[in-house]
């Protein structure tokens, strides 16, 4: 019924006594670019990790395409020390999909500190992401019964590299690329998983203003080209304000504001917590 690709409801992530993400709820409509901003340590990446299954949130529900991918409530020892809200709302079945399962459903991500496979070439980095959807088993792969499938994977990888302008680096070791290209390769690798929703964790980190501008155009371009919905964490305000359709602001794990870029920019709470006062 909804056109939300991702629906996050009352997510709380508590590590021991520390509440990293507190009762976070958000919706990401199809085809939109949504940003999550907040000061350092606000819990942005933790929220990403809860959505992608790296962490199992203490409480809350995440739905992707109206299907629950994560659902948990405090249990065991956590029941006693739980500091969040809605402790009784998600009792019953626990859903905790592993990251690979969630990726296979169509959520793909990049990392804040680039995580490429550093002993492998650019080509192999993208090719491995194709492994998940390949129709083969270990015997057919070993004895080359999957030649057609392997050929398809290689051709698709090559096509993707050409589209992303990385084809001339295909035999370079991934980590020998310049920083900006490594970022781009990580996005290409994420695209190779055929996602519906792409999560970008600080894609512009370490980029200069010109590169950031190019990145903004690039993000819009891939959204249109691959029919993606994009959810990103970013600190470059110019980039966020430029491309986002909707912005969520969190501080100390709690949502403090949300709205369109202009709404957020003029919200006194946000200015106080994050953007700072301009003189």
């Amino acid at each position, binding site marked *: 019924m909804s056109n939300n690709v991702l629906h996050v409801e009352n997510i709380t992530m508590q590590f021991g006594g520390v509440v990293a993400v507190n009762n976070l709820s958000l919706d990401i409509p199809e085809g939109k670019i949504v940003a999550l901003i907040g000061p350092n340590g606000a819990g942005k990446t933790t929220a990403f990790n809860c959505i*992608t299954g*790296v962490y199992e949130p203490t409480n809350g529900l995440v739905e992707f395409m109206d299907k629950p991918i994560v659902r948990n409530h405090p249990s065991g020892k956590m029941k006693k020390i739980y500091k969040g809200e809605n402790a009784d709302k998600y009792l019953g079945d626990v859903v905790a999909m*592993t*990251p*690979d*399962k969630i*990726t*296979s459903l169509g959520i*793909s*991500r990049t*990392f804040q500190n680039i*995580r*490429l*496979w*550093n*002993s*492998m*070439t650019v*080509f*192999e980095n993208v*090719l*491995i*992401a*194709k*492994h*998940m*959807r*390949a129709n*083969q088993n*270990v015997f057919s*792969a*070993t*004895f*080359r019964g*999957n030649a057609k499938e*392997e050929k398809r*994977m*290689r051709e698709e990888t*090559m096509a993707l590299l050409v589209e992303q302008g990385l084809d001339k680096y*295909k*035999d370079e070791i991934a980590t020998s690329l310049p920083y900006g290209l490594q970022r781009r390769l990580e996005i290409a*690798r*994420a695209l*190779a*998983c055929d996602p519906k929703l792409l999560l970008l964790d600080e894609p512009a980190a370490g980029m200069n203003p010109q590169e950031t501008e190019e990145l903004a155009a690039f993000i819009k371009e891939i959204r249109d080209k691959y029919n993606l919905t994009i959810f990103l964490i970013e600190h470059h305000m110019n980039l966020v304000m430029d491309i986002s359709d909707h912005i969520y602001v969190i501080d100390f794990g709690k949502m403090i504001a949300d709205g369109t870029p202009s709404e957020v920019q003029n919200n006194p709470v946000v200015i106080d917590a994050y953007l700072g006062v301009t003189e």
Partner: protein
Amino acid sequence: MSNTKKRIDRGSLITLCIILLIFVVTVVLENTINANSLLFTVIRKGAVYSLVAVSMNLLNGFTGLFSLGQAGFMLLGAYTYAILTIPNSVRDTIYYLFQGSSFHFSLLDIFQGALGETFGLIVAVILACICAGIVAAFFAFLIGLPVLRLKSDYLAIATLGFAEILRAIFQWEKLGKVTNGANALRGYPTFSDFNIKNSSGMIVFRLSSFVPLLLAGICIAIIVLLINSSYGRAFKAIRDDEVAAEAMGINLAKHKQLSFCISSFFAGVGGALFAMFASTVQAKTFTSAMTYEILLIVVIGGIGSISGSCLASFLYIACSEWWLRFLDNTMYIGGTQVPLLRNGFRMVVFSVIIMIVVLFFRQGIMGSRELPDLFRRKRIKEGKSDE
């Protein structure tokens, strides 16, 4: 992509030629020079150790799982092979301490009865080797369920413990009717049974060093194919960055389990070959020291290099069994005793050599390169070749 496709490059071609040459030279030497030369012991044991080292490399070097259970899986393979192939006629004399074996089934008898002496032997040995692998892989699957959740050192300790437990269980008197307790199993087909004999029992053509090379070669070739397949790439992705691998849709539990079982399968086959090499099987030979030997070979050869593991196992076996033998014997030159040469000195020199190798080849002899890479240096810019 299109210009490099379907062309066997120079490096692979030269490597194939070298391997073929080694095979041919082995057969020729075996039939021309003294068959009792230590060279052939080195070839046989080296071939067996190559296979086990490569299987360990698949796990430690390519999947990044630090496991030390190799000797345990070899033990499983060796016992499976021996129990399945001991002819029924000698079974009771081998198990005499336990009033005969509880197992009256011999692949060798079945196939030699059905297919004739030679062909039956080949089929029985191959089947028994595969069974040895399957038993090892099955135990790996069981032990892998809890143990593969562990990381690095902890996994190593758990698998090492598993291997030690196996060794103890196989020596248990209560299982004597199956494992012959702490006593040796023998009488099963060994490498020397592959020598071709004439009707009066004289050896006319020796193949006893060629057969282990061939069997180990086939197994290693399968592992190489696996490593260069989509699954091999997934293993390497897990090694390089587990978090990224999982985020890109690689099921960690499944792939780790797969790698562990395949590695153990070939360790089991390696154990069967070891049984054929040693011609007796006894649980006390499969100590953790054996695992360390294999680990040493993998590290010296280069973690993540198949050809490195093979090269290192032959060098290692040659050093420990052959080239340094003279250091253990007291020697007199012109009536004076050469200093330092005495029993045990070999191991001192051996350890020093290993230290020197590790100091000068930080990444092992081959690093993460393979043999074909050495011959293809000039072509590296032209495009990536696949094997």
